[in-house]
């Protein structure tokens, strides 16, 4: 087994086993970081692969959270089964993503950026302002969304819920890495790299961009429907305002689009660092700004690009020659740089 697989295996084992030793509040924070990773992996598809910018990801996560939470909880909600509520929550944000993506037929670049920003602000002023969905009507409302349960499996504890989210993250990572190596995925990448070249070989940029936005919305929805039961009492809407969307965007950029694992690691760091540095009482703005500045200054391909260049430089030439034929077959989580 080569070094890369061993590294992945070790990371997976560490990510799974550490919770049995860690205090509960770290498990909780790590779960939020895992959900953040799922969200930003979705963003990577849009920003990194098809090269459009979306500033509505936080709004979509919040929408899925509130809609599914309202449908799922019995008190202050409709008491639906969790999977049905989740499906509707995800469906709503996928629909919003489709609406945005339709405009990519005519617009691109800065227009899509601002359109998504406009949608984010609209969500804040409409969906998030609906008290029935979000915090409940009346000041006495303290809504509690219970953790879901599958037959024989309960996720009531933080540890169990973390492992569930981690498993989902693993599925998402595998799916995206497989997708990228399929013909469909390569078409997506081509649309982002050179739209005209894609069109000239019969690939419809518009259709693929729609798919990218749909996939991004889907992953935001998955993260959102898991956020409600994670917190129990849903966070107030200001946790999903426009600047949170900007922060989400920074993660795949800092990580670099070439590595899905890099996005996950940066997201996890972003989730854990503020709590780790809490005793220092540093302004969250300074902390975030410093992190993003370092990440962007590190290199044009992000932090993962720096790591990949370093590893590539250390690789013996004979190994490259010997394994060259097999490179394409590797389960690539750290993809080749474009």
């Amino acid at each position, binding site marked *: 087994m080569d070094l890369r697989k061993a590294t992945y*295996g070790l990371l*997976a084992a560490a990510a*799974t086993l550490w*919770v*049995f030793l*860690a*205090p*509960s*509040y*770290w*498990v*909780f*924070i790590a779960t*939020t970081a895992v959900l953040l990773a799922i969200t930003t992996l979705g963003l990577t598809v849009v920003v990194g692969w098809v090269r459009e910018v979306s500033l509505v990801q936080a709004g979509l996560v919040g929408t899925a959270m509130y809609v599914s939470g309202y449908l799922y909880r019995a*008190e202050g909600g409709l008491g639906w089964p969790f999977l049905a509520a989740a499906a509707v929550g995800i469906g709503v944000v996928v629909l919003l993503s489709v609406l945005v993506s339709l405009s990519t037929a005519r617009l691109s670049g800065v227009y899509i950026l601002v359109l998504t920003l406009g949608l984010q602000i609209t969500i804040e002023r409409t969906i998030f302002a609906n*008290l029935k969905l*979000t*915090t409940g*009507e*009346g*000041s*006495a*409302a*303290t*809504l*509690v*969304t*219970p*953790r879901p349960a599958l037959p*024989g*499996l*309960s*996720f*009531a*504890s*933080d*540890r*169990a819920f973390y*492992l*569930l989210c*981690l*498993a989902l993250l*693993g599925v998402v990572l595998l799916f995206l890495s497989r997708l990228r190596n399929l013909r469909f995925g390569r078409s997506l990448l081509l649309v982002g790299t050179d739209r005209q070249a894609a069109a000239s070989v019969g690939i419809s940029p518009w259709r693929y961009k729609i798919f990218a936005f749909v996939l991004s919305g889907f992953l935001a929805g998955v993260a959102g429907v898991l956020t409600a039961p994670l*917190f*129990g*009492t849903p*966070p*107030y809407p*200001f*946790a999903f305002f426009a600047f949170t969307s900007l922060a989400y965007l920074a993660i795949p950029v800092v990580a670099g689009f070439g590595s899905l694992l890099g996005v996950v690691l940066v997201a996890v760091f972003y989730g854990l660092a*503020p*709590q780790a540095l*809490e005793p220092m*009482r540093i*302004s*969250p*703005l300074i902390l975030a700004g410093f992190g993003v500045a370092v990440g962007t200054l590190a290199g044009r391909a992000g932090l993962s690009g720096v790591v990949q260049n370093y590893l590539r430089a250390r690789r013996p030439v004979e190994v490259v020659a010997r394994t060259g034929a*097999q490179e394409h*077959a590797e*389960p690539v989580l750290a993809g080749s740089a474009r």
Partner: protein
Amino acid sequence: MRSTNRRSRILVGLGLVGALTLAACADGDSTSSTAGGPPKAPTPEAGSPAATDAPSEATEGDAGAAVPNTDAAVSAGGDPSASATPGAPTAGPKSKGGASASTPGAASASSPSGGSGSGSVDSGGVSPGPGGPQAGAPTPRSQTPAASAAASAAKGGATDVGVTDKEIKVGAIYMHGMQLASFMPKPMERLIEAQLRVMNDQGGIHGRKFKYIGCDDGVPDAARTRACYKKLVEQDKIFAFLGGLTFNSGLIQPDIERDKVPALAPGSLYRSEWENPWSFAIHMGMEHEAHAGGQWVVDVLKPKKIGLLCLNNAEMQATCDASTAVMKKAGIKVVHRVTTSAETPDMSGDVLAMRAADPDHIIHYTTHPAATARFMLDASQQDYWPPKGVSGNHMAGEFAGALIGNYPAKHGYWTNTTYKLWGPELVSWSRKYVPDQEGLHNHVMQGQWWSTNVFFDVLKKMGPNVTREGLKQALETGEYTTGPGLDQKFMWSPKGRNAHGTGARREFMYKAVHSDWAATKDAAATPGGLVPDPDRFVIEDTFD
């Protein structure tokens, strides 16, 4: 290549199965705070509008685990040794027939009464009068000092979570990442830390010194708020929460109730902090403020139509609904209601709409002084002010007057607040021990300072056998008064949390005369620019 792919798939599949198996086995782990499922919402019966009572003396008891003490003197010059804050009022339960900290023209709250004379609380000794513990409810176990000491010694001083023979751990969550951190969370935390420090310098209580652990939840960030809670309760194992200010405090109320952690002097921004039996709020609930303030408007200003300015969150919308109910009952029309958000930069359109609706008076419920100030400044710029002025809550901060300028004072502005401003004992104490607090006192800080003193007194009277349950029972027993400086009292028994004549329903109405609301330099420490309303200073919610 094919075999490599198959092997990878098998490994991944095994990994997933393993993860799910671990997830199933991980349920019920001891480090989890959600074992048994997420917490339920706080039980609402304590704050139920139906449960109104007249204030009455709930119980009395001897020193020890139960607090009520018949000789608690409520005066500004209380026994200094009984408090960590020399010169501060002794905060303790009011004795039957003792001096009532009433003010001239006070609302009809009768002084606490009922029950037998001084004596300990023991089984059957509690008179089940209104506001007191109900018959059949557990009575505070009485312990003599010797018994308390023996009980503590038997446990090696570790009488409960967060308590050892040497220290008591307390904690709080503050949103230090908010923009106004230097004006609200930081000075509030500084004040409580100073109180704890002074108490430690005096030797602590029963040989135990206080260890304070603060946690910063950022702007606030919901994930960090919850992580702070878990850290303080599960990792640091604090005995109780003391103080704190975060917009996310409502999120953790179910956890506080589930984990049975006393939360003293919370920010009191949410009704759930009143309804949670483990939370001991120190500021009047918003809906009661709406009723009390609304009734003042009806009786004193007598408008025919009013306008409302409300923040777009559940608490403030409910508060505005409560105000609307008062107006409706009095036959006063609500002609326009503005719903605003904290980040709205320009309210001139709302001012224009309000002007067109032409209310006689406007009432604001926005929690955040800056949001209220924005409307008032835009209104003053358009030279618009309703003929009978503007009133509202949550503006009682020394720095808030300067935010709105002199226009409101010139044209009529009132604000209601839970404590008399600013409290000579508080101001003199903070001038001595925390000089940086000058100009930064606010109504929540008043309550937190006083409540910290209550905490000290209760612990002293409990004796060495300090327990969470004992603290809760002690706080639920009797009436706690601030002294004439702050002139307020609270009862935290299930029925007392809604009692008339206490801070749950009784407040003070101040009229603005100019924009400098800072405490005067003399000992009275009154706000120069705010004076007691000459028509009705003490207001009360008698609406429900």
